[in-house]
């Protein structure tokens, strides 16, 4: 039998149903795996006791015939989701000691459906980053890093901001994990770790109880090892929530049923503007390969144009910091988290925020404050929102001639910690293929498609029409099968 930690969610559900093992056994195996991955600094908070009691309850439900669609599946939670009674840090010093009195809607739905929480995993501070290196709790190292744990030849990044989520499933220490994606924070780490990640359509998953970064862009989604598992987990995460004013009230399909493998006649858009400068030759070749796979399966590739692609990053780096500067105003040392005293209230605010926020977060708050300040609002913020409209129009136009769009997930294989980091603009280029999708509010996913010459994973991205996650998943599974990605990281638990 396959080791319990190497099962897919679908496989684990099958084994549980057939009584080949219990949820407690499955969870115990994962709790040991969580301990084994400690050198990679993936978990901020481990919750083994809660996991085992949730697993026990799951076995009881199954015995009574009331098991839910994810019953007994051990997962990790990005430490951006509020979890009742369990520390929630957003990777920031400023949330020291914060234990929410409430549970985020998305995680409460996962527990409702029977999932088991292994703990809270690392991220870039407040989800601002592409490498999971900026958290107060330290950097996460990818299990793809060559060399023995702790004595790596190169410390490869897991991507970000959902790098802990990506690393934990790649290392076989959880069957899935929640992520959030504001500019690529699910898809880019999935691409960097050979895993699957979906950013659903804006409004699909409730944002309630998720620490906010940029509210008009933030969206939660599943990260798993297979497309089928992503379909299973996505179904539990989605759904209308009156507590989120941007949550969309529409039925949640059985995404797994969409995985028919039949994509005959489907038109796959290939955006010519994504052939950017700096795109590595091996990514370009993989992209061509992806087109060929879909063609073999009966789909029809069509060239599409997204003329404002090159402006997406610039618009993003105004809109996201602007929203962040407003969202992060709440961290003031009064109601939760860190407080650094000062002579008066204003000094207390400034001292708390100066000590509590890391450098990248401060940089983005300052940019956001500047672009929203009197005299600059029109020139920067409104201009960026107009460009955002044009980017959305580009996609509307493109989807008149295609049903789904295929692109690379990131312009290169993952870099090593310490490389590329001096220049913030250079760092932002990691997100060049993923950011436009958040600006347009569309669903997109990354599917592992191959390895680079350096032995590190490469992903392909699929972009869908609003609320058409089903086509996305169907095509994603065709790519997954054709790529037959079976590589495992040098370290697995």
């Amino acid at each position, binding site marked *: 039998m396959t080791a319990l930690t190497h099962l897919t969610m679908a496989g684990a559900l099958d084994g549980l149903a057939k009584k080949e093992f219990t949820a407690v056994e499955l969870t115990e195996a994962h709790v040991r795996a969580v301990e084994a991955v400690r050198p990679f600094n993936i978990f901020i908070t481990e919750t083994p006791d809660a996991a085992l009691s949730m697993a026990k309850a799951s076995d009881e439900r199954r015995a009574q015939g009331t098991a839910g669609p994810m019953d007994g599946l051990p997962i990790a939670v990005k430490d951006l989701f509020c979890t009742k009674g369990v520390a929630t840090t957003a990777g920031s010093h400023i949330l020291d000691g914060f234990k929410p009195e409430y549970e985020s809607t998305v995680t409460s739905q996962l527990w409702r459906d029977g999932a088991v929480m292994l703990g809270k995993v690392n991220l870039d501070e407040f989800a601002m980053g592409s490498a999971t290196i900026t958290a107060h709790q330290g950097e996460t190292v990818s299990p793809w890093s060559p060399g023995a744990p702790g004595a790596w030849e190169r410390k490869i990044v897991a991507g970000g901001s959902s790098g802990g989520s990506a690393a934990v499933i790649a290392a076989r220490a959880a069957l899935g994990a929640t992520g959030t994606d504001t500019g690529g924070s699910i898809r880019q780490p999935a691409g960097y770790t050979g895993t699957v990640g979906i950013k659903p359509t804006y409004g699909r998953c409730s944002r309630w109880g998720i620490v906010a970064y940029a509210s008009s862009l933030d969206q939660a989604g599943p990260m798993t090892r297979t497309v089928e598992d992503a379909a299973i987990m996505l179904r539990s995460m989605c759904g209308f929530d009156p507590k989120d004013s941007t949550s969309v009230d529409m039925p949640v399909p059985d995404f797994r049923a969409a995985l028919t493998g039949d994509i005959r006649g489907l038109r796959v858009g290939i955006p010519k503007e994504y052939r950017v400068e700096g795109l590595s030759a091996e990514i370009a070749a993989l992209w061509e390969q992806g087109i060929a796979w879909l063609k073999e399966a009966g789909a029809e590739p069509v060239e599409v144009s997204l003329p404002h692609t090159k402006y997406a990053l610039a618009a993003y780096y105004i809109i996201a910091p602007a929203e962040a500067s407003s969202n992060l*105003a709440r961290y003031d040392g009064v109601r939760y*988290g860190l*407080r650094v005293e000062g002579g008066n209230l204003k000094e207390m605010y400034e001292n708390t925020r100066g000590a509590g926020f890391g450098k990248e977060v401060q940089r983005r708050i300052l940019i956001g404050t500047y672009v929203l300040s009197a005299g600059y609002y029109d020139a920067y913020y409104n201009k960026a*929102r107009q460009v955002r409209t044009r980017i959305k129009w580009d996609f509307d136009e493109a989807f008149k001639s295609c049903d789904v769009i295929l692109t690379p997930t990131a312009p290169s294989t993952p870099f090593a910690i310490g490389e590329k980091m001096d220049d913030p603009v250079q760092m932002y280029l990691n997100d060049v293929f993923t950011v436009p999708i958040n600006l347009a509010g569309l669903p997109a996913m990354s599917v592992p498609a191959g390895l680079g010459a350096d032995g590190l994973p490469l992903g392909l991205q699929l972009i869908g029409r609003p609320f058409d996650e089903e086509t996305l998943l169907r095509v994603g599974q065709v790519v997954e099968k054709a790529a037959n990605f079976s590589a495992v990281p040098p370290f697995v638990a």
Partner: protein
Amino acid sequence: MSLDKATVAKIAHLARIKVPDEELESLAGELSQILTFVEQLNEVDTKDVPPMTSVAAQKLRRRKDEVTDGGYAAQVLSNGPETAEGFFVVPKVVE
């Protein structure tokens, strides 16, 4: 666009973030770099283009103006760094 130290100090004050004087210079450089990068947006023709307010094709939902929640002050206060008698405590505001 290039920001000077004084402007950075002013933004930091508006954002209520204490930035040590010795860091203002390098921060000014980093922020200027980002502002220069975003200047390319001026190449885009946005005449008569509405600024996006909602990415989803729906109007902001309204709810009835009624109390549906509350009555647990102790939980609200439970994470406060300093609380007393049902209140959050802050340094004196009025001199």
